């Protein structure tokens, strides 16, 4: 080999190394592993459902696994495709679900992703009037199996791609307020970008990455110089992006992690990390009764231009209508569905509309191709996430020879002309289900300590709850880190972590963080006795605002309460925000969490004592009435005394007049006796 060639080779190696600042690529041995990936699939009796599974760079995919559940099937088979190629057929189904493995070739991931499809093939029967079964095929809990060593990204722009399988957000042990706020913002931004089950976790500096699987990332936030935020990429077992900066700049840089504009940073180091274009306006004031838009189209809820149904038998189309998209809670909807359908002359074709599995409309289709439906969805049907399902039931008419007389019907619902107009209000939504829409996409967050105290990390707990809420929100949440006292005294809805007994007292919370007992039900006894320590997440209604309050109690103020709180947050992460019910989640020392209504709490001494004050209203009312009576009696007494004095004066005057008359008469009588005139 010539010296020139060696020199060029060495220079290439050197250039490669300088693009990876810090520790060089650690050559790890090849290994096999499995990582969860987000999408799931649902298919009906006809058509195919497909999704993309992203493959981290550097690894070789070997299989995609998932849980198959089929309901309503009567024969037929389920086919799985990889890149359009049928890789497996299953003819035996279990409604409870079976784990299936779909083999994948290395070449299937040529573009960094694999297209997985599922479809149901029903038994073809060449007979007029035969209706395919109404079946539902679900492929969930998808995971990617792979071998090989994941390759680290070489530029900031490629740090967060679609193949990310988990992110740790690292903060110092004693962060400043802006670093802490940036960390929480980073968590919500990443949770907005990556759907469950991709974990987004807040950890402290020095802690090992929570996972080392392919596609895992670490984002470090630290105090830096004022001005532009510096971003530095570090290769290693787990690729790490370090953001250094201060104040709002650091927070905005953290928010930028949630959008694809990050892709413009095409180097291992970048400054002024941010957005080349501003995000759409989010975090508007919208809280209860806000002025945010309440009139949307179906196109705001789905990417499909039209919802299509067709064919004989039953066909379905589903759209999720999240309350959160209206920037606040709503109590009802007016649906206007507009579209067209094929002409139906003789056959029996009916279109049903369900909202949250409740039938709200049923129309027979006829020769008029226009489809116009106006529906009112009342409060008792509305949920935080509402399912709008259109179902076409088509029964063909057959002639005497057994042939169909019409072609299968087709219905298209135009999503841009179909509207959803919401009515503001909470309806029957209550408790945890009010979140996150009641926040209006802006979340004031307060923690009592930014450092780890007694083994409890309140910042991480806040991050866990924000992640769960973000995953059901339709837009990124804007986090404002505020002082705990400020949040308690303010009028805003928000999140309070590390709440104390004094906080719950000031908020008049239904559960004061003191000892508590629950009512024993006949069906279930919640083992929470007088001295039981617990952690609790509750919804506090305080003069129209809604606060999420997380805290714990131990009888001896021990540190165990903090660990219980961590486990409570882990539970929320596991079940998801949609899995929360009622308005109180309690984690007792036996680690069995349960959800109840705060109305089931037995009255705590503090609340009972507070109620004693009401007696003063009763006393004041009685005192007022007594005062009025006394005043009237005094007035009457005074009047009666005046009357008596007047009577006495009159009597005295009459007596005097009588005496004078008597004296005059006596005088007259004496004069007569004397003969005087």
């Amino acid at each position, binding site marked *: 080999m010539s010296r020139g060639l060696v020199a060029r080779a060495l220079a290439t190696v050197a250039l490669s190394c300088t693009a990876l600042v810090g520790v060089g690529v650690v050559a790890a041995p090849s290994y096999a592993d499995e990582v969860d990936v987000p999408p799931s699939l649902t298919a009906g009796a006809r058509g195919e459902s497909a999704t993309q599974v992203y493959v981290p760079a550097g690894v070789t995919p070997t299989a995609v696994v998932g849980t198959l559940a089929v309901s309503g099937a009567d024969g037929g088979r389920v086919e799985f495709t990889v890149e359009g190629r049928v890789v497996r057929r299953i003819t035996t189904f279990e409604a409870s679900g079976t784990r299936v493995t779909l083999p994948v070739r290395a070449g299937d991931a040529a573009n960094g992703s694999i297209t997985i499809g599922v479809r149901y093939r029903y038994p073809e029967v060449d007979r007029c009037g035969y209706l395919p079964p109404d079946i539902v095929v679900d492929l969930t809990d998808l995971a990617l199996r792979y071998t090989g060593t994941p390759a680290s990204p070489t530029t900031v722009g490629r740090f967060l791609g679609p193949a990310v399988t988990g992110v740790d957000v690292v903060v110092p042990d004693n962060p400043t307020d802006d670093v802490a706020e940036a960390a929480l913002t980073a968590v919500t931004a990443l949770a907005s970008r990556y759907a469950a089950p991709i974990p987004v976790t807040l950890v402290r500096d020095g802690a090992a990455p929570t996972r080392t699987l392919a596609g895992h990332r670490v984002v470090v936030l630290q105090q830096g110089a004022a001005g532009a935020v510096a971003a530095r990429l570090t290769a290693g077992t787990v690729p790490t992006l370090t953001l250094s900066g201060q104040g709002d700049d650091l927070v905005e840089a953290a928010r930028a992690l949630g959008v694809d504009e990050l892709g413009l940073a095409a180097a291992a180091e970048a400054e002024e990390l941010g957005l080349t274009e501003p995000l759409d306006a989010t975090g508007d004031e919208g809280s209860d009764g806000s002025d945010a838009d309440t009139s949307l189209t179906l196109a705001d809820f789905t990417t499909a231009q039209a919802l299509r149904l067709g064919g004989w038998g039953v066909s379905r189309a589903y759209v999720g209508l999240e309350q959160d998209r209206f920037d606040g809670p709503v109590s009802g909807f007016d649906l206007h569905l507009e579209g067209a359908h094929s002409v139906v002359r003789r056959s029996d074709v009916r279109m049903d509309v369900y909202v949250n599995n409740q039938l709200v409309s049923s129309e027979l289709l006829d020769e008029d191709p226009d489809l116009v439906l106006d529906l009112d969805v009342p409060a008792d049907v509305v949920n935080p996430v509402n399912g709008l399902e259109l179902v076409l039931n088509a029964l063909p008419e057959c002639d005497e020879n057994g042939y169909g007389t019409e072609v299968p019907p087709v219905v298209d619902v135009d999503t841009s002309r179909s509207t959803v107009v919401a009515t503001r209000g909470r309806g029957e939504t209550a408790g945890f289900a009010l979140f996150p829409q009641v926040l209006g996409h802006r979340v004031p967050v307060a923690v009592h300590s930014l450092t780890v105290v007694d083994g409890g990390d309140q910042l991480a707990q806040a991050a866990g709850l924000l992640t769960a809420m973000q995953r059901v929100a339709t837009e990124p949440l804007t986090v404002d880190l505020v002082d705990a006292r400020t949040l308690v005294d303010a009028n805003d809805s928000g999140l309070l972590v590390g709440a104390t007994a004094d906080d719950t007292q000031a908020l008049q919370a239904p559960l004061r963080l003191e000892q508590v*007992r629950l*009512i*024993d039900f*006949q069906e279930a006894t919640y083992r929470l006795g007088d001295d039981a320590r617990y952690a609790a997440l509750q919804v506090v209604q305080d003069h129209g605002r809604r606060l999420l309050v997380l805290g714990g109690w131990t009888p001896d103020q021990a540190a165990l309460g903090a660990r219980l709180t961590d486990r409570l947050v882990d539970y929320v992460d596991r079940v998801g925000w949609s899995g929360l019910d009622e308005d109180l989640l309690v984690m007792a020392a036996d680690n069995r969490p349960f959800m109840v209504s705060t*109305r*089931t*709490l*037995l*009255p705590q001494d503090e*609340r*009972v004592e507070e*109620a*004693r*004050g*009401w*007696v*003063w*209203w*009763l006393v004041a*009312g009685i005192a*007022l*009435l*007594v005062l*009025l*009576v006394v*005043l*009237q*009696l005094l007035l*009457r007494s005074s*009047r009666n005394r005046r*009357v008596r004095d*007047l*009577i006495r004066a*009159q*009597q005295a005057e009459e007596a005097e007049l009588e005496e004078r008359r008597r004296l005059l008469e006596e005088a007259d009588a004496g004069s007569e006796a004397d003969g005087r005139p």
Partner: protein
Amino acid sequence: MTSVAVPVRVTSGPLRVSVDPNRARRVPGSVWVFLLGVAVVAVASVYTVRTGTNLDYGDARAHLAIARRITDSKQPGLVQLGSVWLPVPHLLLLPLVQNLWMFSSGVAGCVLGALCMGTSSAALWRITARLRMPLLPRVVALAVLLANPSLLYVSTTALTEPVLVAAVLCTIAGLAGWATSHRMLSGGELAVFAGLPAAMGVLTRYEAWALALAGVFFVVIVSRRKGRTWRASIVWAASFAAPSAVAVAWWLAYNTAVFGNPLEFLTGQYAAAAFTEVFEREGQLSTKHNAGLSAAVYGRAMLETSGLAVMVIAFVGLALTCWRWALDDRALVVWLGGATSAFLLFSLVSGQHIMVNDAALPPGAYNNRYVLSAVPWLALLTGLAVSHLMALVGHWREWLFVPVAVAGAALVAVVLVAQNVYWAGDPGGRMTIIEEAEAQHAEYVVMRESAHWLRDHYDGGDVLMDQTPADFSLAPDLGIPIRDFYTRAVGGLFDEAVADPWSHARWVMMHIRPIESGGTDTERDLVSDALADDPAFHAAYRLGYSQGNVGIYRRVEQP
């Protein structure tokens, strides 16, 4: 005492020298008002019977069953009155429930409720006449009473509150008539017109005992003011109290004869005290010894029953009454109306009973209908507010007398309409009595279906069933003569049937799994306790119907 004409200001209406028609025994319009009250409840009953909501309250179903059992039972007789509730409402229902349809549909309760509302309306009309209120305020008071949806709803059920309200108002009307009569009524007249209604009330609900006691003091005070001696005043009071005393004595004698304990109604296992003891043991009796919380709970119940606006206007009426009438006889008549409220508040503070609503700790919906006894008082005070305002303004500017009357009446009318519109928007959420009815209705749906199944499949042979648990209070829905049932109410016969069901009953209806309860025995299903885990029973009976925890079994018989 010297009488002299003096130029003093008369503050209580024009001085009349001729016989005041409001002080005569007959009060014009009483019959029409009675008929109006009956008609209003009759209209309300059409709705509640058609929807079946007149039977939502378990207690209402129980009252119908108790009344029916007096004549239709394996052990008929007055012993079926029991000691849980006072007897008068059941005795009044007795003739009405003899018809199986009227019993099953609950129409018997509607008829009684309508008659009670008619009586209450007429009594209130007479009270307002005795207080010399002008016509328009009297109409206002009547309107507040008749436009109360909670009271109207309860009047279509077989609950006891309508009877209490009628008895209370009749007692006050009688006392008001006696106090304002231009001639001295005899002791017998006082006993008849005031004492008998008081006795009816005393044997209806315990709140009336407080009214009877207040009435005694009222009679003594008014009698003394009329110049009677202490001895004469006490005799008057005794005339009034005698019927109530006889009623109480009869009740004690009944308890002694039937249960061997004159205070069985107070201390027995089915007494109200036993229930509150359970709540106290569970830590839920937070109103006990807490006057503030008790006031808040009671106030909340009044708020959701009568409405804030009526409460405010009524308070104004009470304040004006205190200011203008102080403690004269008419004021004392008004204060009589508050006796039941005072008693209930005292009961809450002393822990004798429990009331639960959104202001309670813990919150819920229970026993709020007790506050209905305050509705007539609030109605009277609302009318008085208008009356006093008319008088005050009229004395200031006589020409304003009529306009103020019209304006006051119009204001109350607007308030009543607005209030009812508000309540109609969400009855279950805004009226605690309806909330409780809806909650019980929701819990009762399964039971009602089970009862109807048994009704439709029963082919004779008697039924063994413990109807004491609240969810098994099904007699009206069962629609089967009660004499076909072995229930806890038949005492020893029930025990025999439980011990040997095969020989006694072809059918058994019970909870499939025994009810585990830390409460009183009224919550337990004694049939289920004995037979649920008995293999011999399950061998001899076949489960023919089940839903939830309810099972209906039929004896396996040779064809």
